[in-house]
């Protein structure tokens, strides 16, 4: 059961990563927004928070992988 739970979580992680990748790819493919539109983009504080959250999640994953490798 625990293995199934882990496989389920890994599948969810892969799908979420695919969503992020698609969103970022779509965003990069769009033409440069006009200045008025740029003002609606994420504020710098939110961008920093987003980056911090990404770094935290990656750190958590690293820790988990290291623990798993050590058994």
């Amino acid at each position, binding site marked *: 059961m625990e293995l199934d739970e882990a496989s389920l*979580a890994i599948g969810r992680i892969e799908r979420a990563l695919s969503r*992020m990748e698609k969103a970022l790819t779509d965003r990069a493919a769009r033409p440069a927004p006009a200045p008025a539109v740029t003002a609606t983009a*994420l504020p710098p504080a939110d961008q920093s928070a987003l980056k911090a959250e990404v770094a935290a999640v990656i750190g958590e994953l690293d820790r*988990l*992988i290291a623990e798993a490798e050590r058994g």
Partner: protein
Amino acid sequence: MADVKLTIAGRPYDVHCADGQEAQLIQLAGIVDAKARGIQGGTEVRQLLFAALMLADETQEAQSKAGNAEPQLDSLRAAIALAESRESTARDELRAAVSRESAALDQVKQAAEREAALSAELDKLRQGAPVVPVPVGPDHGRALGQIADRIEELAAKVEQIP
């Protein structure tokens, strides 16, 4: 003692001096002789008198110049001491700055290495590589679930970025 024969204003003199000082004595006699010969006319005694007066005048002038130079020498010594002190301070500051720069560079290198490792990890995840290549324990399964929650939240935020 050494015996030395001198000739001043055309007259020979036999004098004695300490061993090793003959050359010095001959050189000094040469100076007196040149002064005496430069004075034309008069008796030999008068020539020697004027030579002695001229040498005394030159001696006095040299002493006066040395006395005037003394304060300047003090100022120069003070300036040299100040310059040496400033150079020492500047060297210390430079050494400290190099040390700080080196430490900052090390931090940048470490940060770059961490970033590269994280980036490689993220690439592995994107390529669908197994996240945990070894059997997963109960706690790990729960932790993976929590991480999946956070990544899904992140994906939602990324999708909402205009």
